[in-house]
């Protein structure tokens, strides 16, 4: 893991060194909007509403998708990939380092926004004492957000491995995510009608669905990460 974190350290340093909205200013802007402005505008419900959990579990995936396309396509475009591959680092260290960097970035930004919102709302907008996120909401956010982030990171790495440019990788990743979203929404709509009221009205069923869903996401993550590892071949990356 030491090697993977060395790669991740490099990714973070590069991210912070980026100019414009991709770098520090983008981070500050994101935290200002999602950590201060929107929570203050919304008020305590930003913290207490269960919708927050659903909304925020998508944010890590979105944030990962903004940086992961650069993982290998960016190195290729900036002519640093071959030198990186010529180091002593193992395939796994390079691959996981890239994923750790993207997931860590998304996690830090999400956590940062949530903490800032908690502070901002309680300082300015809470009329009835201090409000906290619901533990169950936080847990669901963390688990689903993490699993989703791993999934998008692995898909992003897979695409970035073969893309000639960052732009191409971003376009392919965007298209893939939209296609997956359409698939999930269509799948949900195709659920038998008699299941739907049960899900809404029955808490144990909701938990069962959540657990089955998370289990499926774990399996999906394992499959996509394994595929990314299979596709990571130094020989092909150099020869392509």
């Amino acid at each position, binding site marked *: 893991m*030491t090697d993977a974190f060395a790669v991740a*350290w490099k990714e973070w340093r590069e991210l912070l060194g980026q100019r414009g909205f991709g770098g520090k200013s983008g981070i500050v802007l994101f935290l200002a909007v999602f950590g201060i402005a929107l929570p203050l505008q919304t008020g305590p419900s930003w913290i207490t509403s269960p919708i927050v959990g659903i909304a925020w579990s998508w944010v890590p995936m979105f944030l990962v998708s903004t940086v992961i396309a650069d993982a290998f396509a960016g190195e290729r475009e900036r002519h640093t990939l071959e030198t990186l*591959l*010529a*180091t*002593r680092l193992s395939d796994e260290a390079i691959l996981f380092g890239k994923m750790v960097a993207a997931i860590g970035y998304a996690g830090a930004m999400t956590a940062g926004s949530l903490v800032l919102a908690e502070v901002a709302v309680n300082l300015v907008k809470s009329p009835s004492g201090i409000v906290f996120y619901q533990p169950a909401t936080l847990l669901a956010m963390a688990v689903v957000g993490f699993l989703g982030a791993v999934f998008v990171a692995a898909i992003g790495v897979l695409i970035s491995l073969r893309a000639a440019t960052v732009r191409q990788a971003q376009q392919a990743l965007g298209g893939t995510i939209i296609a997956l979203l359409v698939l999930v929404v269509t799948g949900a709509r195709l659920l038998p009608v008699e299941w739907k009221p049960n899900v809404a009205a029955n808490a144990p069923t909701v938990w069962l669905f959540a657990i089955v869903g998370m289990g499926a996401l774990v399996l999906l993550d394992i499959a996509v990460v394994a595929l990314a590892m299979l596709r990571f071949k*130094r020989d092909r990356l150099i*020869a392509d």
Partner: protein
Amino acid sequence: MTPPAVRTANLSRMFGVVRALDDVTLEIPRGIIFGFLGPNGSGKTTMIRLLLGLLEPTTGTAEVLGCDTRSAAAAIRQQSGALLEHCGLYERLSAAENLDLYGRFWRIRAAERRARTKELLTLLELHDRCHEVVAGWSRGMKQQLAIARALFHRPSLVFLDEPTAGLDPVAAVALRDRLARLSESEGVTVFLTTHNLAEAERLCALAGVVRKGRLLAVGPPAQLAAARGETSVEIAGTGLTGPMLAMIRIHAAVQSARTDGRSLIVGLKDPAGVPQVIAALVGAGYQVESVRNTAGSLEDAFHSLLELQP
């Protein structure tokens, strides 16, 4: 017995139908600078990629520092450093951060990384700019930093792929001098590819000439020059044409002939053949201004070798 730095046997690599490296058998002892010479597209970069285990050979075998490139590529990369076709520096990072990063990759402790960064950047006279982002640096400075990066973890073997390519003559000479100093002080084996023959002649203890993937000759530069380039003359004049050059190349007394734009350089099978060659040239309309015997150089040997191959 310590194995040589590099040992290859019938090493070949195909890209589709293109044979980038063709049946190369070579042995490079440790502790020297080896020059791998050849024109663009001759297979020099492919050779480095194969030796680093970044590409797999199509046929044949290669051992680097006693490790097989197919089965122990990770061990080879552990003990090697590389400056490849592109300098591969992270342009959003500073010079010190670039070196520090590679120290982290080789799991060097933080205090040692700082000391090594200072040592190398001081040696390269770049220390006062170590906190600058390298994006704004000149190509020469980047190449020097990339060499420092390749040597950072004190490897046993360093691959340098045309380190002076694209540099102006002053920067190239400075880099060459520093490279010689560094390789001596670090006691490292250097595998250097270049098409700059003066560079190879000055730096290398052993050189191999490659063309179209085939290794044409291996030996100390002086020996290659003596074997191939001892009987050459430089004929300055005006009015040289392509047919004239073709005629001279098939002359009985001529080993090889080429032009550097100003003069005609003719390698001779026999020094006594000079008058016949001059007479043939004058007869064909070439206006000879001067004729000068040139001492055998690696450049003559190189061109002679390339011309002998189909």
